[in-house]
């Protein structure tokens, strides 16, 4: 008899495919994982605690650093929570600007995901294709608010900067450009036999499991649950637009791939409609008291970020700072299903499944 032993393998926190400083300890038997223990917290900065001693405007930059791939939606969830508490009126132009940047951000975020996912699977070229197009969006954001990643763009009551001259035209031109390139991406990757063999049927779960684990975003929709807050609980001005929610059947990595790719197309559709309706002028800030003091009470709002349902729970005592602040971070919640999915899979599938969940470690650890 050959004596075999399980190997304890430490993946991360410095590993090219853990998308940051995520760490997972796996027990492997040959190449098959028998147990997986995720270790989080390498990027924990205590955002929620820090927020208790900051006023609401000061918290906004901290939300940028949570989900740094999609800072606009993190910005929005905070200001949306405060606005809900204070019953503020948001001017039309600000509403549209917010919507446009959030949808552009969704496209940019999914492009990052697409590129890095293919990189995880071993194809290098798609990454550079994706970043070429993401760069266009980043440049537009840069022009809008002077930052490429941490925008600090939204404010309670509106947005900080108006669109510069010609900016809207750039967004208009971007939509057909991105559509064309999306086709190219599909031609390049989506039908590749090796790629399909790598992701079809991997990391499967059913709808009930997805709901039990509190998954959201593409992770939930891949299992066949049609749930998108933009449609089901419209916030901002999403109820004015016509778009579809792509839903999967099998709940595997392939479905998640297809859903995210389709979401790019749907975001472009929303952008196209928003461009047609975009108000030519108007205020970008509503009437907001000098010092923002939400009334005493609690509020919980949730929106659909590219990664899923991001929520913000504020407990206010009527002061300029929140008494308690809590973010429901989709990356953190979605990650919880990982140990369950990994058992019985190979080392290679660890990368495929982790990439398929689409985490941003800044948001996992907050």
């Amino acid at each position, binding site marked *: 008899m050959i004596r075999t032993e399980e190997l304890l393998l430490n993946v991360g926190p410095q590993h090219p495919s853990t998308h940051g400083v995520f760490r997972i300890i796996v027990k492997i038997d040959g190449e098959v994982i028998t147990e997986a223990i995720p270790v989080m917290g390498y990027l924990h900065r205590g955002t929620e605690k820090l927020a208790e001693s900051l006023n609401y405007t000061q918290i906004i930059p901290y939300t940028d650093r949570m989900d740094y791939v999609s800072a606009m939606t993190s910005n929005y969830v905070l200001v949306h929570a405060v606005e809900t508490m204070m019953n503020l009126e948001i001017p039309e132009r600000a509403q549209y600007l917010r919507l446009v940047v959030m949808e552009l951000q969704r496209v940019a975020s999914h492009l990052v995901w697409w590129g890095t996912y293919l990189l995880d*699977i*071993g194809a290098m070229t798609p990454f550079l294709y994706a970043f070429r197009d993401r760069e266009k969006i980043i440049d537009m954001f840069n022009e809008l608010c002077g930052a490429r990643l941490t925008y600090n763009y939204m404010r309670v009551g509106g947005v900080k900067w108006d669109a510069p001259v010609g900016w809207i035209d750039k967004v208009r031109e971007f939509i057909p450009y991105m559509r064309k390139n999306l086709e190219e991406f599909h031609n390049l990757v989506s039908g*590749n036999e*090796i790629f399909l063999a790598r992701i079809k049927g991997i990391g499967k779960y059913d709808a009930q499991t997805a709901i039990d684990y509190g998954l959201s975003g593409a992770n939930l929709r891949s299992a066949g649950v049609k749930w998108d807050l933009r449609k089901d609980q419209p916030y901002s001005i999403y109820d004015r637009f016509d778009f579809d929610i792509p839903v999967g059947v099998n709940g595997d990595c392939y479905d998640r791939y297809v859903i995210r790719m389709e979401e790019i197309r749907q975001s472009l559709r929303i952008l196209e409609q928003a461009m047609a309706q975009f108000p030519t002028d108007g205020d970008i800030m509503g009437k907001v008291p000098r010092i923002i003091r939400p009334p005493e009470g609690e509020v919980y709002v949730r929106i659909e970020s590219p990664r899923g349902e991001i929520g913000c729970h504020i407990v206010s005592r009527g002061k300029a700072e929140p008494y308690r602040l809590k973010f429901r971070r989709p990356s953190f919640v979605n990650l919880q299903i990982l140990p369950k999915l990994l058992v019985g899979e190979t080392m*290679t599938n660890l990368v495929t499944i982790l990439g398929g969940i689409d985490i941003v470690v800044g948001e996992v650890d907050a």
Partner: protein
Amino acid sequence: MEDFLQKTLGWGNFTIFAISAIAMLLISLGFVTYFIYFERKVIGWMQFRIGPNRTGPLGLLQSVADVAKLLMKEDTIPKKADKALFILAPVITYVPSFMVLAVIPYSETLYFTDLNVGLLYYIALSGISTIGIVLGGWASNNKYALLGGMRSAAQMVSYEIPLVISVTGVIMISGSLNLRMIAMGQEGWFWHWNIVPQILGFVIFTIAAIAELNRTPFDLPEAESELISGYHVEYSGFRFAFFMLSEYTYVYAIAALTTVLFLGGWYAPAPFLDFIPGLIWFFAKFAFVVFFLFWIRATLPRIRIDQLMSLGWKWLLPLSLLNLFLTAIYMEIFR
């Protein structure tokens, strides 16, 4: 050259042998240096990048600088590594890769040995390199390196067999294991090349050869995104350089072998193009094979280890046996 090789060994021709061996070594080193440069350039263009362009004119000295850096780097050996094997592994990997170059003929008159079992020699030696990879993975005492080494062993066993069986078709057609003879049997128009009757064999050979080379989509032993860099994760400096060198020397060898076995060696695709020297034709075909490898690398994602196994055993092996059978029928009917 033939008379010269047949002469009895004396000091005079021993010196010439030694000099030509050194020349070959320098040629292969030069090839590896510029192969890496062109790989980075070509893949760069395929990915909307420029590629190396800072060191020297057009970045031509980039690879030279990289090699110089590797040679000057501190040589580290992990404390818990098996020291003797750790040192030995890159040598075991590199030496066969250089030795196989001996049997490759470049033109009718330019070759270094005229071995009657040239192809067998090539296949036998190239298998040894894998032992170096497994040893390197094991001796590093690193779990990722071990996994990389294990994968490499599995990959070698699965792909060596279809590779050998796929070239057996070529051997049957030319009736020789001598690479020179095989190339000379393909004279004339391009449909005399072995790729035409052996198209199935060529496809199997190409897939198996890429797997042997550990290049994308079969770069599992060093899978960047899973195993960090697999078997050579603990190596640095010139020991690491030797692993890389042997990998790229094998690219050279496989590209030359493909040219000789399937693409008509040094013969022009049409007899009236014979005024262009054979050496140029050889290197044109060789360069095309090399470019093809770049192209594959820029396009395809990586295959999974179990899929690699099932592809090797369930598809390539039966197909290569079928190819053998078809070749026998072809021989019976047309010859």
